[in-house]
């Protein structure tokens, strides 16, 4: 006898699909089948069941071997490391729930740490741009119900957010979009002919790293001003045609991704894209939205926001919150050698940071809290495996459009395993003792 759990939230990407169905054994210990999720989400649920999973903390030995330790020993090492460090960095938070993030922030406050989330290497530059000129945006349901112009700029949902187009942006039939994809014009801007680009009505194959110029050219075209013959590899006639196509819509949306946030221009690419959106609101209704990667990177930004006032790259070392990417941002802190202890949770910097940054934390005291084996656990002194968020423990998360959704627990974690929040609470209480605070 098995039971089916409905309305399950998929803890992979910022699309945060909440219509997944999971079949579990009736003792609730085994996850058997997954429906409605994309191939990545399905893998995420099923891999949580793998037999070779590490279920107890492990200390890295000098000879490269691992020694199993108890959670209490892991708590002690983590607390001592954080309490002793001059400038500890608590990084990650994007694959854990907001409850755990809150406890983490308390620890950071007590130990006067730097804290940052994975926006550092995905949409950090978007946040800088938003701070410069704002963000006219909307929820994903608005796009489903109204959008007749959909632009994907430097993002490839076919690969990175597999169900995005079917749930929200291209195919769904909404209140004012009863013809579904027929009622929408799809524009893709990408230097490659991506699988997303292949579906588009218009594909602008921009020269890599020239998005800023192309976006500026669009704004010039809106105003009917002079343009050079070719901008970023696109002839001016084409630019004017696309500009008119955007203006002529009733409700438009620009989705953007790593293609613009990580290329030359960085925050200014987003800045200009937001300016394009702002301009278009003089003629019609337009919105813009970052395609957030980790399923709860947005939530981490929100929690940092209401507790410290800044969305990421927060430096608490002076006892109060400070923020300035370039100074307080993880990559710069690491590469500049400003950090003397690294606590990683809900992220894999080992795989996704430039190697010069990874080398820095590979040689200082380090803890990695992660259910998986990763390059980060591979170079950390202590690996603390925990229950899978969104599978073995619930908790609140924020979708890419900032909509909060409470994740569901579908199966029990292996006997005796702690969740992120439970482990962090133990560390927090020990750190309080070590620092002698109430």
């Amino acid at each position, binding site marked *: 006898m098995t039971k089916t759990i409905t309305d399950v939230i998929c803890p*992979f990407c910022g699309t945060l699909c909440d219509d997944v169905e999971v079949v579990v054994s009736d003792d609730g210990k085994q996850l058997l089948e997954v429906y409605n999720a994309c*191939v*990545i989400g399905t*893998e*995420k649920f099923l*891999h949580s069941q*793998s037999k070779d999973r590490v279920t107890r903390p492990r200390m890295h030995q*000098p*000879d*490269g071997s691992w020694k199993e330790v108890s959670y209490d020993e892991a708590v002690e090492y983590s607390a001592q490391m954080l309490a002793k460090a001059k400038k500890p960095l608590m990084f990650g938070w994007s694959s854990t729930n907001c409850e755990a993030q809150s406890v983490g922030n308390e620890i950071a406050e007590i130990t006067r740490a730097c804290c940052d989330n994975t926006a*550092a*290497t995905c949409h*950090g*530059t978007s946040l*800088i741009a938003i701070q410069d000129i704002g963000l006219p945006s909307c929820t994903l349901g608005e796009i489903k119900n109204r959008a007749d112009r959909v632009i994907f700029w430097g993002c*490839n949902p*076919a*690969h*990175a957010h597999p169900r995005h187009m079917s749930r929200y942006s291209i195919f769904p039939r909404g209140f004012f979009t009863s013809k579904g994809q027929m009622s929408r014009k799809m524009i893709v801007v990408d*230097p*490659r*002919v*991506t*699988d997303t*680009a292949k579906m588009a009505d218009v594909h602008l194959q921009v020269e*890599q*790293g020239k998005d800023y110029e192309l976006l500026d050219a669009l704004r010039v075209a809106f105003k009917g001003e002079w343009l050079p013959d070719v901008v970023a590899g696109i002839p001016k006639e084409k630019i004017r045609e696309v500009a008119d196509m955007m203006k002529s819509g009733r409700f438009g949306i620009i989705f953007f991704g*790593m*293609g613009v*946030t*990580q*290329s*030359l221009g*960085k*925050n200014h690419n987003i800045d200009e894209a937001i300016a394009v959106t702002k301009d278009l609101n003089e003629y019609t209704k337009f919105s813009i939205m970052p395609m957030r990667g980790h399923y709860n990177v947005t939530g981490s930004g929100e929690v940092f926001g209401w507790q410290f006032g800044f969305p990421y*790259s927060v430096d608490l070392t002076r006892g109060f919150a400070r923020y300035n*990417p*370039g*100074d307080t*941002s*993880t*990559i710069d802190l690491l*590469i500049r050698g400003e950090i003397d202890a690294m606590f990683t949770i809900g992220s*894999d910097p*080992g*795989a*996704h940071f*430039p*190697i*010069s*940054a*990874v*080398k820095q934390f*590979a040689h200082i005291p380090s803890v990695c809290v992660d259910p*998986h*084996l*990763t*390059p980060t656990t*591979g*170079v950390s002194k202590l690996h603390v495996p925990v229950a899978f968020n969104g599978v073995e423990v619930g908790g609140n998360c924020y979708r890419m459009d900032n909509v909060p959704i409470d994740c569901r627990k579908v199966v029990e974690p292996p006997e005796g395993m702690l969740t992120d929040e439970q482990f962090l609470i133990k560390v927090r209480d020990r750190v309080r003792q070590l620092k002698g605070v109430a």
Partner: protein
Amino acid sequence: MATINVNLISGRSIQQGVAIEGGKEKPAYRTAAGIIELDPSDFKKLGAWKNTNVRVTSDYGSVVVKAIETTQGPHPGLGFIPMGPWANAIINPDTYSTGMPTFKGVPVKVDVAMNEPILLGIELVQKLCGVK
């Protein structure tokens, strides 16, 4: 066999997405992300068959990956390595004081390295960091 210069970008692919959830210690991760996608025209310039091991070198490092023909082309002169340790061994870490490394738009050199092994993800990072 020649050396070619391409502009490197890194990013998500669905195979890489599946592989990281399937386990980064597994060979499947290397198969998904230990690759560089090149345009057919660049294969000609390189004078190599599809699916040969190549060494990709930038100002910031060097790594061996498998060269495969792009499925999201044509993009002559552009190379794509999925996000992961292989790409990050050679991308430009300069953040221009924005906190964001330059993951996309790194000039790299590609040579055939037929007999050089492609390391597993965790191995690669441990080796580059000098950690056992």
